C-alpha cells in the first residue's frame, strides 16, 4: 500500500535501479573491451600474415584498434595498401587452413 502511494506520488521517470543497471551495462562494455597486450600483438601478427597473402601492405603505418561506441565494440583497422598482389596465390593457391588463427 505504502509502496503504491510512493509509486504514485514520488516516482518520476524509471526506477533508479534500472538507471544503475543500464549504466553498469555501458561501463562494462568498455571495461570488457580491453585486450591484453600480448593477445593484441598476436592478433596483429596474424592479421598481417593473412592480408599479406593477397595485398602488399604498409605494416609500419597500419593502425588497428578497438572502438567502443555507445553500446557496442568494433575492431577498426586502417591498413594502407601498396598494391594488389597478382598471379597465383602463394602456397599453391589453396585457401588457408583452420590453423591460421593460431598465435606464433
Amino acid at each position, binding site marked *: 500500500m*505504502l*509502496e503504491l502511494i510512493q509509486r504514485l506520488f514520488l516516482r518520476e521517470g524509471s*526506477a*533508479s*535501479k*534500472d538507471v*544503475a543497471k543500464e549504466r*553498469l551495462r555501458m561501463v*562494462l562494455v568498455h571495461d*570488457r573491451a580491453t585486450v591484453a597486450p600480448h593477445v593484441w600483438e598476436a592478433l596483429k601478427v596474424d592479421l598481417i600474415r593473412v592480408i599479406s597473402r593477397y595485398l602488399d601492405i604498409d605494416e609500419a603505418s597500419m593502425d588497428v584498434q578497438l572502438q567502443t561506441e555507445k553500446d557496442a565494440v568494433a575492431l577498426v583497422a586502417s591498413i594502407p595498401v601498396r598494391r594488389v598482389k597478382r598471379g597465383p596465390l602463394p602456397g599453391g593457391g589453396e585457401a588457408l587452413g583452420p590453423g591460421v588463427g593460431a598465435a606464433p
Partner: protein
Amino acid sequence: MSEVIVITSGKGGVGKTTTSANLGAALASLGKSVVLIDADIGLRNLDVVMGLENRIVYHLVDVVEGYCRLNQALIKDKRFDNLCLLPAAQTKDKTAVTPDQMRQLCKELKAEFDFVLVDSPAGIEQGFKNAIAGADTAIIVATPEVSSVRDADRIIGLLEAESMPPPRLICNRIRPAMVRRGDMLGISDILDILAIELLGVVPDDESIVVSTNRGEPAALSQGSRAGVAFRNIARRVLGEDVPFMNLDETNGFLGRLKRMFGSTR
C-alpha cells in the same frame, strides 16, 4: 578433501572481512577445522572482527620470513578449538610477501585444516595477487551498487586470466524494501550482469555492526538474519543444497507497520 578459498571483491568496504570471519565461524560450528588468513598486510582487521586482537604474538610475515614456526603464529579462536587465525602484519606492506610464499603457506595449512579461508585486501595489485596465489577457488563479495558490481566484473576477468575456476558470488547488504521499490539492484540484476554462480545473499543487517563492535561473528548469534545467511552459505560451501532465504519475511502485518513508521529499511 581440504580447500583453499579466497574471499575477494576488488572494491573495498563491501564486507570481505566480515564475510571471512562469519564463514569461518559458521564452518567451524559445523565441525570443520578452519584457518583464516588475513592477507591484508599493513591493514590488519580480521583479528578485531574475530575479537582476537589481544592474542597476537607473531604474524604472517614473521612466518614467511622464518622468525617463527607456522604453528606459533596461529591464534586459536575463543569459541571453537577447530578455528584458527593467521593474522596479518600491521607494520609491513604488501610487498613483504610474494605469491610463491603464499602458495607454500596455503599448501602447509591445507595439510592441517579442512578449510583455509584467505581474506583478500581490496584492489588488484600485489596484495590481491598474493591472496589468490594459493587459492583453489574464489568467493566474490559484492554489494548492490554500480561501483561494486563493476569491480566484481573486473575481478572475475582477472581470476579467469589466472586460470582459476569460475568464482561464486555473495551479494552482501541487500535491502529488500529498496529492491522492491526498484531503488536497488536486485539479485537477478546482478547475476544478469556478472553471469556467475550465486553462493549466498546477505541482507543488510544492523546486527553485523553490533557483532563487529563486540568481536563476535554474527553467524554465531541466533537472532541475526545476516547470521542465518552466513550459516546457509557455509552449508552450501559444504555441498548442501540450501534454498535461498526469503528476504520478504517482514511482509506480515507487523512488518508492514514497521515499514510504515520506520520506513528507511
